[in-house]
């Protein structure tokens, strides 16, 4: 067997497997407990398939009581637990722990209620993101955060990752659109955080749990806000001769006081890949395209459309199209929405990176990424949420070529460090998971990491939920060797070196 993706320090659980299986067997129906290798195989990785592990067992509870029971058993026996939604995470957040239980929330797939008058939906965590908007559509409502994976990903996974999407520039991330969640804690308690009101007494634990990557509790119910579908939408597509000019156009639009419903950029390799795949009639010779969606009422959108068109021209766009009808709008978006699979077609494998930068550093970051691409001899295609400065460089590689994935990972790490260097972050929406855990050492000081660990312990004192993910131990950072050096002092002189 290949060495574990986990480090030895995260594999120190002593698990009485027999007792675990027996107690789980008493709590769950036989078909809700997968123990043989073949049935566990489909759970060995999430969307980041380069990392794989088999869990001891996969549990598929159907009721909140069963979740409580599973967690209580795990707490009693000191067994790690990894919650899993749809498994589309791109940061190996849902990677199983080899000594633990993989808790699949797939059977929690009911939309409990859609309340038109209150504009809310109460759903179980396994419900797919898109299914919420579909259920709300008959009332003229929708759920705003729309990750590109929305056909598949679960709302539980969205809350755990604080997922974003094209609409998030104007309508916010998951954290802005969730009103309340019910979690089961590692103590087996069922706790509701937030409420249907706009605020709640006490600390904002709802915000704490959102984006916590399954480290603080298991989500069993979620209440989301629904928004009215905007009466009018217009979609523009503009081609630019340089990536720089496209970047300036983005800043120009925002400086003009316009917040588009979506503002996305693709560079030439991404444009070509998307065009080959979906035939959206994209301008394949452009250095970059911007796709801009304006939404609101007729008057406002009308005004904005004229302004934006003028600005795009002013910033050097040489081909500006306004979608004439619903079909064309869908076509403009189709290439962007399918950018990842499209790139998948032009390369045996690709690795999707996720970092955010201050937008004004865009040109510089792209230039330095090009240099890195040459240095590591790996091609990079870029699609990004331009309005938010959230980059998704796609590194193209071939997993069958020995050493190429290692080089890809190193290049990915360098790009994330570059994001931090220019004042950004190592993850804008995909989470840290297992993937970016070393780069967390670059972004955060020792004290901040300690504070994160303390916060985790407030929810999960024994550290059984998703161990080894999201927040690195100081030990790990010391070994990674990239922690900030404060005041000329060596990082962590107090931690023994190996």
């Amino acid at each position: 067997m290949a060495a574990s993706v986990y480090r030895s320090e995260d594999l120190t659980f002593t698990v009485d497997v027999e007792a675990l299986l027996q107690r789980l067997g008493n709590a769950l129906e036989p078909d809700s407990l997968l123990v043989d290798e073949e049935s566990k195989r489909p759970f060995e990785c999430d969307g980041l398939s380069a990392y794989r592990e088999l869990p001891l067992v996969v549990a598929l509870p159907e009721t909140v009581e069963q979740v409580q029971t599973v967690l209580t058993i795990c707490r009693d026996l000191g067994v790690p637990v990894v919650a899993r939604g749809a498994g589309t995470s791109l940061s190996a957040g849902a990677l199983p722990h080899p000594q633990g239980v993989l808790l699949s929330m797939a059977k929690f797939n009911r939309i409990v209620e859609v309340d038109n008058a209150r504009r809310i939906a109460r759903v179980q965590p396994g419900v797919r993101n898109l299914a919420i908007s579909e259920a709300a559509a008959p009332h003229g409502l929708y759920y705003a955060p729309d990750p590109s994976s929305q056909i598949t990903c679960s709302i539980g996974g969205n809350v755990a990752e604080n997922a974003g999407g094209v609409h998030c520039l104007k309508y916010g991330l998951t954290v802005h659109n969730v009103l309340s969640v019910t979690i089961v804690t590692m103590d087996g308690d069922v706790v509701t955080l937030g409420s249907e009101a706009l605020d709640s007494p006490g600390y904002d634990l709802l915000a704490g749990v959102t984006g916590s990557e399954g480290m603080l509790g298991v989500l069993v119910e979620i209440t989301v806000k629904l928004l009215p579908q905007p009466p009018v939408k217009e979609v523009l597509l503009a081609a630019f001769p340089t990536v720089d000019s496209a970047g300036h156009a983005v800043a120009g639009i925002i400086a003009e006081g316009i917040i588009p419903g979506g503002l996305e950029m693709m560079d030439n390799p991404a444009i070509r890949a998307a065009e080959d795949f979906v035939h959206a009639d994209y301008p394949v010779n452009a250095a970059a395209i911007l796709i801009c969606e304006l939404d609101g009422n007729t008057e406002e959108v009308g005004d904005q459309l004229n302004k934006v068109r003028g600005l795009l021209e002013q910033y050097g766009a040489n081909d500006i199209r306004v979608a004439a009808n619903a079909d064309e709008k869908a076509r403009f978006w189709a290439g962007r929405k399918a950018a990842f699979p499209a790139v998948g077609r032009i390369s045996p494998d690709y690795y999707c990176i996720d970092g955010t930068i201050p937008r004004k550093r865009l040109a510089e970051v792209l230039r330095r990424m090009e240099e890195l691409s040459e240095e590591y001899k790996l091609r990079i295609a870029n699609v990004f949420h331009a309005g938010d400065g959230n980059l998704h460089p796609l590194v193209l590689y071939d997993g069958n070529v020995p050493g190429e994935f290692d080089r890809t990972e190193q290049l990915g790490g360098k790009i994330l460090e570059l994001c931090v260097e220019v004042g950004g972050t190592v993850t804008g929406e995909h989470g840290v998971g297992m993937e970016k855990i070393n780069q967390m050492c670059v972004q955060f000081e020792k004290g901040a990491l300690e504070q994160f660990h303390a916060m985790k312990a407030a929810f999960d004192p024994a550290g059984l939920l998703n161990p080894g993910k999201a927040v690195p131990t100081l030990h790990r950072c010391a070994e990674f060797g990239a922690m900030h050096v404060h005041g000329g002092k060596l990082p962590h002189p107090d931690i023994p070196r190996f």
Partner: protein
Amino acid sequence: MSDNQDRSTELVEQVRAALAAGTRLAIQGGGSKSFYGRAVEGEPVTLQGHTGIVNYEPTELVLTARAGTPLREVESVLTDEGQMMPFDPPDFDGNATVGGAFAAGLSGPARPWHGSARDLILGMRLINGRGEHNRYGGEVMKNVAGYDVSRVVTGSLGTLGVITEISMKVLPRPEAECTLVLEQDPTAATLAVENWFREGMPVTGAAMHEGRLHLRLAGSASAVRVARERIGGEKLSDGSAWWQGLRDQTLPFFASDLPLWRISLPPSAGNLDLDGDRLFDWNGQLRWLYTATPAAELRERASSLGGHATLFRGGAPDAAVFHPLTPGVHTLNQRLKQAFDPDGIFNRGRMYADI
């Protein structure tokens, strides 16, 4: 304009000294909310003089300021660039500080449509109860690295640490604004406002008092004009002063010395069925109420409607100011306090007696 002054080293030293001596601390911004929350005893830690806008990039929609910077100063810098704090353009004429605003976590009338303080925060620097001065979040729009400490600290009333710096998202100021007054009872008004919003009208405020709805529209000039024609009613000549009066509680309704309750409810929650003078904000989701109803009864009623009630001002000093938490949530609150402030030195008891 206040001085550009970084007092954070001094603040860290004060916290460390208190930690060593076992002294409790009471954090003070501008003191504009001294009436709010439970009484605190402790050596004062003042953010006065820890001031200055550290970074402001209008095209990035981000502003970073030291915690003691007056809100008024932030407001004026934003106005010069045609921008605002979207949860409500503040125009405080007191000493209210940026740190105090996020520590209090309160939001003005635009909250249901433009979000709250916690929605707009991007990052902060905080001195925790171990005397460590750390940064969380950052200055970019999207950031999910680490737990969202900045949002958890927003609204925590200084019980988790000393905020020294805040980065927040700002937005363009709308081109046009207009306030309409319509004769309508709260139930009918709530429904009407919701429907106008669904039709795409640029609603950014809806407050009801004594059979009158105050409706604020803000957006592009064309959108506001069309909405005005569609909705009717009477245009208020100085609308922005009225909204400011509502937010800063200078409207005549707020002149009473009686205990004032702040009741936060889900949409269309219906009638509270309690006696007393009241004003509805947030299209009925926030209710200000002067009542003689005992706290327990009022809270039970608010809870049964899915909301909660805060004794915002007045009343017995040792009365529970904030709505009691369910046991599970209370335990998590206590443990979180422990995680940030293990020795319990910051604003002890300001929110809850044991927090």
